[in-house]
């Protein structure tokens, strides 16, 4: 791995969290508008912080492990970072929330597409554990 190393690390973060959406059944990718609203302020604020850190010399990037593509002085990898890590955080939060709800719900646990993990209730209805509005 050379210049793509930082980007590959970000790709790994996306891949490793995919089961949270598609196996556990967090509804994050399926709430694109809410996701955009949640990530945008963080993206802006932390890109500005990154800019300050670069300009003030708090940190630099190793040319060996980044593509060299930059927006101004900010490597594109950093911009990707400020999208991917908040996304992973939301996925984790939703997956934890769903697992807590499932743990409190009776019934046989099974996987059902596209809901993810659900509880089968005795009356034949499936409890998605998706909570209200899911």
């Amino acid at each position: 791995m050379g210049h793509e190393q930082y980007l590959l690390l970000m790709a790994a973060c996306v891949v490793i969290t995919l089961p949270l959406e598609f196996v556990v059944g967090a509804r994050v990718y399926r709430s694109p508008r809410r996701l955009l609203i949640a990530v945008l302020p963080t993206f802006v604020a932390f890109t500005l912080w990154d800019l300050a850190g670069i300009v003030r010399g708090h940190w630099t990037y190793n040319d060996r492990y980044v593509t060299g593509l930059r927006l101004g002085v900010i490597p594109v990898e950093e911009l990707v970072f400020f999208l991917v890590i908040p996304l992973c955080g939301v996925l984790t939060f939703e997956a934890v929330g769903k697992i807590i709800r499932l743990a409190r719900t009776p019934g046989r646990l099974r996987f059902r597409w596209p809901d993810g993990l659900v509880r089968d209730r005795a009356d034949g209805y499936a409890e998605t554990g998706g909570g209200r509005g899911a």
Partner: protein
Amino acid sequence: MPEYSALTLAALAAVVLVEVVWARTGIFGSARYWITMAIVFGFQVLVDGWLTKLTAPIVQYDAAQFSGIRFPWDIPVEDFGFGFAMVTLTLVVWLRARTTEPADDVET
């Protein structure tokens, strides 16, 4: 105080203020949030550890601009404040952006 350290403390204070003064989601009182942050912390050690390892660093820090404390591995401790503030801000806004009924609050 080194600038990165000061900015990290300021960011943590700002995020707490966003929650307490504006968003008021109650996130800091929920087990769900703290479990999430424990998991995020674990994965941050792996990802940030890779980014900052001194044998082949992707990101290089000016020793004069942070506390100088690197733990665990070679991770500048300030990075954990950075990550904590970043994920917390996102989650607070995520909860605020909920479009369903208010009863669907933090929940746990």
